[in-house]
């Protein structure tokens, strides 16, 4: 048994929090059961369509992270007396439910998924009050990553992204002295022709990485807004660089070891490289930021 490192007032707040959770437990459970009944078929639909694609398969991960974040904050959220804000709460719930009814009946899965964030937010306002919502804002906002990207948006971004990936990959390989040529999004190296497919645009890894990055920032609990913003923005170029690295690796594997290697095991391997590169770059950039933004209030505790 270790001695609690927290000052006594924090311990008291925690105890109060535990009490708060217990006091509100029946209401929380009833609300969550209704929520689950309401959205069960949304999740079944998501599991069958969007999550089973390679493109936006990060859904279950986001859901798990959201649940875990809310769970770890449960005592803080329900600490103190409930001060429900029914006007705001019911406004949010009713607006979200109208969106839900239209979306569910007309099969607009994006809006259907989106609406749950506001049902939960309204639920917190009704159960506990504005303070609870303020404390839970991050997990709720994080649920945005559960919303499938509208097809039109994906289509609008994918092509320019794909072209940029091909151009940069060609330039880099050219500088490295490889016999490479490019027409549109087709790369020709030696005897091989490689088409940079939609899946190689990096759009989907961009969203997965952005989600992971935000989660990382939330866990590190930096107090500096500048640091958080810089990190969140840098994830975009970092994910682009990682994706170009992946494409280059695939091209090189195909060139040196043949078509089969490039399409076989190496494809999965290159995907892992993408995430490894992204993690190293993100962490490296974060350390770099630490030199400029002196922030004691990181993961090691708030001042």
């Amino acid at each position: 048994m270790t001695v609690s490192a927290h000052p006594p007032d924090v311990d008291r707040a925690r105890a109060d929090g535990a009490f708060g959770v217990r006091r509100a437990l029946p209401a929380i459970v009833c609300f969550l059961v209704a929520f689950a009944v309401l959205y069960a078929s949304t999740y079944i639909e998501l599991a069958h369509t969007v999550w089973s694609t390679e493109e936006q398969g990060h859904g279950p991960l986001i859901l798990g992270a959201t649940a875990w974040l809310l769970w770890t904050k449960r005592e803080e959220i329900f600490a103190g007396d409930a001060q429900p804000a029914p006007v705001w709460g019911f406004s949010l719930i009713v607006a979200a439910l109208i969106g839900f009814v239209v979306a569910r009946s007309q099969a607009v899965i994006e809006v259907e998924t989106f609406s749950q964030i506001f049902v939960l937010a309204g639920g917190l306002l009704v159960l506990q009050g504005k303070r609870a919502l303020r404390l839970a804002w991050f997990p709720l906002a994080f649920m945005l990553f559960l919303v499938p990207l509208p097809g039109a948006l994906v289509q609008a971004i994918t092509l320019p992204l794909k072209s940029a990936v091909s151009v940069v990959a060609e330039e880099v390989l050219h500088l490295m002295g490889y016999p490479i040529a490019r027409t549109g999004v087709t790369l020709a190296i030696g005897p091989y022709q490689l088409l940079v497919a939609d899946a190689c645009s990096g759009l989907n890894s961009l969203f997965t990485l952005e989600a992971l990055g935000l989660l990382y920032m939330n866990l590190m609990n930096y107090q500096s807004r500048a640091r958080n913003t810089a990190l969140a923005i840098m994830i975009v170029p970092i994910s682009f660089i990682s994706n170009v690295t992946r494409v280059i690796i695939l091209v090189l594997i195909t060139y040196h070891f043949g078509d089969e290697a490039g399409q076989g095991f190496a494809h999965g391997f290159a995907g892992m490289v993408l995430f490894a590169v992204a993690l190293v770059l993100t962490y490296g950039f974060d350390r770099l930021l630490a030199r400029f933004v002196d922030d004691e209030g990181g993961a090691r505790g708030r001042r």
Partner: protein
Amino acid sequence: MAVADRVNPGFKVPAMVIAAIVLMLIALGASEWLKPKRVVADELPAISMKTLLPERFGQWRVDHSGPPVIYDPTVEAKLATLYSGTLNATYVNAQGQPVMVSIAYGKNQNSWSTAAHRPEFCYRAQGFEVEPRGKAKLALASHQIDVIRLMSRRGSQIEPITYWVTLHDTAALPGVSRKLQQLRFGLQGMIVDGFLVRLSSLGTDEAEQFKLQESFMRELEGALTPDLRPRLFGHH
């Protein structure tokens, strides 16, 4: 021991939370009740892809002389899951200029998996390079219709494309407006069908080919029966 442990909060659910739960259950019921159930395609004359287009109309007639097109079986299989029916034909006019027409029919445009798919993506998937040429408003006999023009290239083969899509009896290009139109039908309880009509011809002179396709389109509209016309071209 903290004070909290000695207090038994008991099983109590505030009325407000119960109200929220009731609202959620009402929403669930309402969403089931509002789901469209009328399959409009079943109430209208059945669509037979074989006899959809006339063998000849205006100055155009079906050209059977070309080599039979052989399709990739995987593409065929994919098409069969997407559409209720497809049709491919080549027409030639009096001057011998060919126009290829390709029509896909989907009975249920409400479902994500059977909704019309944009040709620019199908073409790209088959190794064509596709460049957008923007939207155009073409005048038909009594109304205008929005079409999308594309330029596709594979090797030395250059093929300008004009396409449009319909939803029930209206023309609606993919995008937000189509989604809204679908909502409008859906909230009236209708599951609507739709066509995707694609015209293409081979030739390097874009302007000329697009003009040729436009004239084909106008004559085709005039040749269709009144009950089929809005379904392929929309109305008003």
